[in-house]
């Protein structure tokens, strides 16, 4: 049985192990570098309309994470990568739950919190 026969699916980075080329790292590096420069440029100059900068930064960061996952981790949606892909999807789900859930709950608590004078008033 050759190395290519992996009926139970492949581990992360399996494509790189099978094909073993430098190309994907170079492409990934180029794309990641461009996205990094775009992020720092958008945040440090006034080329982009101010209020839209945070959204642009978010989009650029998610794009760069995608580039890293595809070109450095070599995670794809190929049939033999189902395990890796599904666990990645679950990880993203949990991360989103923690981050956005915390922000919503804490923002809500902050909103419901009476002002200091009101609290002192209530204690009288």
């Amino acid at each position, binding site marked *: 049985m050759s190395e290519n026969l992996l009926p139970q699916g492949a581990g992360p980075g399996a494509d790189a192990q099978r094909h073993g080329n430098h190309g994907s790292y170079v492409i990934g590096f180029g794309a*990641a570098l461009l996205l990094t420069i775009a992020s720092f440029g958008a945040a440090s100059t006034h080329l982009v309309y101010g209020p839209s900068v945070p959204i642009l930064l978010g989009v650029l*960061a998610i794009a760069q*994470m995608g580039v890293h996952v595809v070109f*450095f981790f070599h995670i794809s949606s190929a049939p033999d990568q189902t395990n890796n892909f599904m666990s990645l999807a679950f990880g993203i789900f949990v991360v989103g739950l*923690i981050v956005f859930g*915390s922000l919503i709950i804490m923002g809500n608590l902050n909103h419901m919190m009476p002002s200091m004078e009101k609290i002192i008033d209530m204690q009288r």
Partner: protein
Amino acid sequence: MTSGELTPGIGDDAIPLSERGPAPKRVVVGFGFWLFLLSDIVIFAGLFATYAVLSDAVAGGPSGPTLFDRSRVFTETLCLLVSSVTCGFGLLAIQQRNATRAYVWMFATFVLGALFLKQEIAEFSAMVALGAGPTRSAFLSAFYTLVGTHGIHVTAGLAWLLGMIAQLLTLGFQPMVQRRFFCFALFWHALDIVWIGVFTIVYLGAH
């Protein structure tokens, strides 16, 4: 990878799953480590959420824009990004059993990681000297916890890399050494992904 390269047996129902035998060790190790990395990223998600909630709680102390130096952060980002590529080249060299190239790329990865860490330590000590230590405000506590945890991970990665160089010197290209370096490469790439979140939310998102 095109479907033409797919070997029979993958996605083929001819052989029942229960009769396919255990997965190769390389696959099991890689998948297990991938799960560890995902859970590690969940830890960072908690720290990111904490930072996002507390980033305005400066308690009358210094805020982000007065403390952060973007040019230094850009250099740090470049160090980590290039080290991710050199680490990938090191992985390829180890899989192709090319000793010279493996040592060169591992050494380059170590130097770039150490440069990153040196700048982070310089930043922290300069901030503490300004009176902006972790005890100054909730914002700074969250900042040091998030960025410091990433820094500790990089430190652990550098120690691991030294261990891998030592194992390659003493054990050579054994399958277990190749598996361990493969896990190290995944770990190092994951740190780079976390750093994207750090520089976007902490350093560029500061307002």
